């Protein structure tokens, strides 16, 4: 499945990197968050377990809080707020 980025509504975006392995999910997440405005929210969908740790640490470091984390059958959905 190719990289997919879309606008859900004003200030809400969806980045789907399902199928991608390291370092793609964390790099695409970083680049997307850098382009978003403060207060915007990103729903991130991925299925590479090791990226979960790196993305969580990256968001903490950059001051972008993760509002919600869900995982089911190998798929992860993070809701991240741009700080």
């Amino acid at each position: 499945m190719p990289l997919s980025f879309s606008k859900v509504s004003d200030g809400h975006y969806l980045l789907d990197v399902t199928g991608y392995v390291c370092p793609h999910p964390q790099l695409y997440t970083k680049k997307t968050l850098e382009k978003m405005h403060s207060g915007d929210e990103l729903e991130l969908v991925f299925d590479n377990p090791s990226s979960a740790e790196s993305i969580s640490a990256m968001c903490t470091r950059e001051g972008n809080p993760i509002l919600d984390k869900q995982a089911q059958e190998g798929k992860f959905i993070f809701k991240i707020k741009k700080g």
Partner: protein
Amino acid sequence: MEIAIPQKNRIWVLVIVGFFALISIGTYAIHEYYIYLSAYLWFGFIYGMCLQYGRFCFASAFRDLFAVGVPRMVVGIMIATLLFSITSSLVASTGWSTFHAAPWSVHAIIAGLIFGIGMVFAGGCASGSLYKAGEGNGVSMLVILSISVTQSSFVDLGGWFNNLVPKSWAESALTKSMPSSIKVSDGWVDQYLAGYVWDQPVITFAKLLGLEDTSLVGAFVGNTFLGVFLPAICLLAIVYTLWSRQRFTLDFEASEGHKPGLADHVRGYWEMIVSSKRTAIAGLFLGIACGLQMFVIEGLRMKFGVKNAGTLLQRLGHDFGISAKGTVFDPGYWYVTTQEAQWVGWVAQKLGWNNMDNIYFGWVNGIPNPAINPADWMSVALIGGAAVMALSNGEFKWKAPTKELAFWALLGGAFMGIGSRLALGCNVGAFFVRTANGDVSGWSFGLGMVGGAYVGVKIFNWYTERQMAKEMANLDFDL
């Protein structure tokens, strides 16, 4: 984060564990020598569980640091290396260590550089690709295939490639005593090994202090304290200063209303170390298990009166693929890449490719049937252990590689295959194991690997920027 674990996952866990248990019990019933292979198997299983639990991938250490500023894996690796060094020194000082230091020169740095670029391209290092294969990751399976085929082919490159061998290497290689079955003058890697690498000095931190590796003081003061503890503390201090200090300072100022002092930064340094519990715990168990494996394997060698598994295989009637000096690859500790080269080498030999005339297969490692290759048992069990952990945590998922990822996997795997043969090991064999045992060449490989990760990240940044630009170009909104 709540994860629902399907019932079928529990069944698969039982199937995998039961399969390995059956192999161990069944082969032991045939002959007690097989317990030697089972020791490799169960240590591999433990490594796989630890790696998956801690998302322990050497590639991510410096890649994630350079790419997204995350230091957790550097911390995890330093914890594991230090723990492994302590257990290794304990084993070394009893005289039971299976470790042999490698020749040291600039070749280790160059090899690390090539390997480092490859591990970023591939999305995982050699050991990381094994555990990710256990998560059902098809890309990682392609990486393993690429590393395996590249190594097996690279070590047998002759013909035109002999023209690239410096005269001094060729001349020096000819002076080495080899049986007639080994054609040392035909093969780039053969002449690189016999004509260059073997001529380089073997240096450990203990020897730099004028101490013996097998003495208590040499092992602990030289190899662990000077060789691992001090460099690890300094490396983590650099990582904290460049990547973690700014965030800690911002948070501290927000909560305390003033700038942090030195004592506060020491606390911040410690917070960085314990920030990822999963990685730290995995590093802890990996370090202990790695040292323990040396102890167990050497104990079994003493019990059976052998120096190498090749003797055991011959006693069991498995003569095929034993090297000219009667050995097979039997490191006695965690290792990844040579057994990957061996299984492809074995297949190639069966298909009619004579690769037993080179030093790597024919003189040192052999190409035994993968079904009775101790190191292959370790790698297969590592994948199994990772699968068990992934299934238990609801993280197992079959993922077929896309064309885009397959390209990066094959390219990265090829780089890692070449890098690991030049270094005589990968991130585990050439860096982790050597560094933990006070071998100076371990840090040299690590230095090259860091440089390679930096170059790889630069290339990947450029690539992903282009992909993002393409994806966003068609969207009608302003970011």
